[in-house]
């Protein structure tokens, strides 16, 4: 792994730990983390797509997210992208980076939400800036695999 990514990973850990310590009362509160992700996603996508050809349709944007965007950040592309062509997309990452440092299996499954919400926000922010309003949720059954569900809100 490149050195800069190590630093990014540690920073992510610290943010998770910090948001955790802040939200002791409601243990499942990951909205702060999600929001940090959103803010980053919203900003970074604008810089990335500056010189990019215009996307023709929704699916193109999702593909961009799964290939170029994902591989710049997580060093690998999304393993699989599925859609029902009615605004629901599911991204499969079988080796999600932020979960790869946690022991495999389901022993620590309860902590998984904290480690995926930043990325949920990141996706939501990126799509928001591309003009897609959506809800992003994540699903972890067995670490380090992770699924991200994207539900586009039709206006």
């Amino acid at each position, binding site marked *: 792994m*490149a050195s800069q990514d190590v630093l990014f990973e*540690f920073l992510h850990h610290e943010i998770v730990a910090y948001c955790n310590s802040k939200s002791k009362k409601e243990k499942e509160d990951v909205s702060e983390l999600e929001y940090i992700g959103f803010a980053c996603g919203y900003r970074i996508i604008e810089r990335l797509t500056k010189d990019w050809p215009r996307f023709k349709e929704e699916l193109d944007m999702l593909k961009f997210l799964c*290939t170029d965007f994902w591989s710049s950040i997580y060093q690998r592309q999304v393993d699989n992208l599925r859609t029902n062509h009615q605004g629901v997309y599911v991204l499969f990452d079988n080796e999600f980076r932020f979960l790869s440092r946690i022991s495999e299996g389901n022993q620590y499954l309860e902590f998984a939400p904290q480690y995926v919400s930043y990325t949920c926000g990141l996706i939501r922010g990126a799509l928001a800036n591309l003009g897609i309003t959506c809800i992003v949720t994540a699903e972890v059954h067995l670490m380090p695999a992770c699924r991200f569900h994207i539900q586009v809100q039709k206006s």
Partner: protein
Amino acid sequence: MARQTTKLDTKKVSAELFTLTYGALVTRLLKDYENIDDVNKQLERMGYNIGIRLIEDFLAKTNCGRCYDFRDTAEKIQLAFRTYLGVFPQVSNWSAANDEFSLLFDNNPLTEFVELPDHCLNLKYSNIFAGILRGACEMVQMEVTSWFVQDQLKGDNITELRIKFIKKLEDAIPVGED
């Protein structure tokens, strides 16, 4: 998903995302704490936590041996900045006793997209560096402290981080080792 190559500059993207994420964190902290000094402290603490882990990665990657004097350490710190952030700080302004030096940054990757608003002038935006250095050095039995003397965010020409050696942490060495 057949296409493997990307037109994006991967390195630059992850560096920018790092910068943005750090910025979002600082913004969050500013909202959570009323007192800016507390924000500085919290950033330092987070840096410390990163530092104590980062040193291990650094030693594994660079194969660095023991430092013979503080000048040696300074070089290693400089190397660490180059490895992890891609910046080349200059080492200068040594004190007469060789226990204090400055790192001069022409550009600071953390502050690339940042402007400080007027009510945040006390904020040590990059204070995470101070924490990282303290944490990393502590793990190799050195107590150091560091602080910003000049900061481009506050209108100075360069960013200057001053690092001071305090003492060798003898007690931290496990029994039976030199």
